């Protein structure tokens, strides 16, 4: 009697496991593919789709839409993905303000959201959610690491600047959280500002021994070019965004030698990363960027969960995601209690390899770093 019961249980388990392999997963990717910020979304998409292509899993379907970097469009696309496409998982958003518009309502509707980039503090602390995973980082991480690096490199008087919007304020707060020297000056620039002569003049006059800047996209390109032209030689430190592969070419030699903090670099020494860089170059004929690496990891995380659990069994699928049982291009990959990664953050230096500007790891800024908001998350 007992024997039969066990057999039935085993058959049932087999059936469930069989079903887990069979249920297809539909992913909705909302990202920026047109307009000024398109290069980031394109990289994230290409990285994601590279992993999808390599896995060649017929159960995985991806729908991609362009949010034009407009929050209202992103919300409407999320509605479309959820109501009409009936996706199981959402991903792809690059910008924090778009994430804040989409993620809270999507996870409340029991959809999984895997972030390929944006990870605002609101979603890491009180607003954390069991269906929300950040594969990239928490927004403050790279800024905190820059602060940590500046302290350990012996800088004592930093001039800090960022655009006047929430991510900019978070950035300076993150830097100060791990920087123990003095602040020689603190400047908020206009969002989208293109001329930094006034700020550079202040930097020159400030007597600082280091400059921390967070100016994503075109703002950073403009700042670094103008900084190099100004002849001010106080060392620059920044998060990886302004020294990313996609825009280094546009900055040119002005970026040489700049120290930047990143959780990924193309020279992180592991087999997955090596294969990723090679296959990305082979597929798209350019070096991968940070965003491409996040996209690649996100897809592989999802694929690993698909191999372990049925997406319609939310609890099991969530556990499978949480286990993060995949080969990350960053080497080891662990989620903290608020489902943001706990990871090493490196210091990189911009170097020239032949004619191509790229980054080289020169040290570790923070080891096994978790974010500052995890304790506020009750999950």
């Amino acid at each position, binding site marked *: 009697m007992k024997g039969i019961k066990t057999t039935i249980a085993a058959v049932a388990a087999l059936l469930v496991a069989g079903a887990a392999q069979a249920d297809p997963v539909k992913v909705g990717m909302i990202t920026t593919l*047109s*307009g*000024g910020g*398109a*290069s980031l979304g*394109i990289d994230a998409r290409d990285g994601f789709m590279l992993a999808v292509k390599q896995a060649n899993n017929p159960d995985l379907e991806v729908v991609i839409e362009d949010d034009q970097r407009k929050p209202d469009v992103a919300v409407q696309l999320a509605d479309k993905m959820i109501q009409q496409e009936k996706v199981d998982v959402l991903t792809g958003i690059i910008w924090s303000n778009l994430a804040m518009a989409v993620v809270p309502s999507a996870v409340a509707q029991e959809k999984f959201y895997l972030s390929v980039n944006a990870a605002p503090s609101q979603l890491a602390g009180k607003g954390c959610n069991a269906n929300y995973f950040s594969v990239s980082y928490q927004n403050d991480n790279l800024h905190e690491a820059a602060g940590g690096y500046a302290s350990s490199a012996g800088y004592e008087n930093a001039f800090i600047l960022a655009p*006047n919007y929430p991510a900019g*304020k978070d950035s300076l707060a993150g830097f100060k959280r791990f920087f123990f020297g003095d602040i020689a000056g*603190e*400047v*908020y*620039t*206009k*969002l*989208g500002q*293109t*001329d930094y*002569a*006034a*700020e550079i*003049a*202040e930097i*020159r*006059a400030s007597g600082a021994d280091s400059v921390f800047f967070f100016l994503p*996209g*075109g*703002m950073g*390109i*403009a700042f670094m*070019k*103008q900084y190099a*032209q*100004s*002849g001010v030689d106080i060392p620059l430190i920044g998060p990886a965004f302004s020294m990313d592969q*996609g*825009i280094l*070419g*546009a*900055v*040119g*030699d*002005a970026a040489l030698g700049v120290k930047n903090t990143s959780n990924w670099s193309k020279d992180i020494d592991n087999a997955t990363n090596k294969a990723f860089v090679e296959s990305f170059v082979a597929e798209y004929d350019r070096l991968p960027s940070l965003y491409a690496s996040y996209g690649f990891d996100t897809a592989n995380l999802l694929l690993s969960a698909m191999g372990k659990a049925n997406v319609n069994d939310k609890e099991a699928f969530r556990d499978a995601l949480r286990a993060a049982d995949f080969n990350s291009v960053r080497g080891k990959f662990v989620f903290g209690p608020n489902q943001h990664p706990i990871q090493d953050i490196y210091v990189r230096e911009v170097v020239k390899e032949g004619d191509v500007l790229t980054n080289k790891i020169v040290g570790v800024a923070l080891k096994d770093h978790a974010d500052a908001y995890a304790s506020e998350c009750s999950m």
Partner: protein
Amino acid sequence: MFTLFLEQLLNGLQSGVMLFLMASGLTLVFGVMGLINLAHGSLYMVGAFACAAVAAWTGSFWLGLMASLMAAAIAGALVEILIIRRLYNRDHLDQVLATFALILIFSEGTRWIFGSFPLFLSVPEFLTGTVVMPGDFQYPLFRLAIIIAGFAVAAGLFLLIGKTRLGIRIRAGEADRGMIAALGVDIDRLYTIVFALGAALAGLAGAFVGTTQSVQVGMGEPVLILAFVVIVIGGIGSIKGALIGSLLVGFTDTMGRFLLPHAFATFLDPASATAIGSALASMLIYIVMALVLFLRPSGLFGTEA
């Protein structure tokens, strides 16, 4: 502090001079043809991309600069002949819609051709580095060169309009559009030339600015808004107004960003002083513009009501 103040004045001057290149073309086109051209920023972008592409290809910034002038002028002339010419007799609304459509076409077309990643463009070798200015501070040589080049262009423009036959026709066109046709001037050609001239100025500005900023799609939009602010402050159609307006906006913006946070810091804690000061600084030029128009509803040098 005093040398910093001097340096910031110079920065304001440089940003004003750059704005003038954009604004003069815009105001010229409006003054002569009565056309509101929202796509002026796209011509600026065309100049920057042409300069970056040619400079990367040939290795010469000067060839790039030539290319920026020519590409923008040709693009301007084509746009005028194919599209804008049909809009002179329409009201401003049709012009707004058509040139709005042109922005979409130029932006996405550029992205189609050049890709989504920003391009590289740098200062020519012999203009890199800094010079020591009176008051004992270092100033980037290239910014100094931009100031000089900008004033040279301004002077050239004033000469062109004040002393040449073309200038006489342009002024006649501004004064009375019907009259110059009656005088037997080939008005189609005049309009194409003026439009191409305005476009070339914008393209030149794009190339200059591209060396210090990011050459990317959409780069023309913020500067377009600023140029409109300038010509409205100066009085639409007035080159002199555009010059004064440019300098006013350049100084206001630079000095506002520099001084406001310091001013607030005298009675607020540093963090809120920086935040409030910067917030106010980003609104400052619009406040100045509203103030000017409140006192003089057709700008400083405007003629029409």
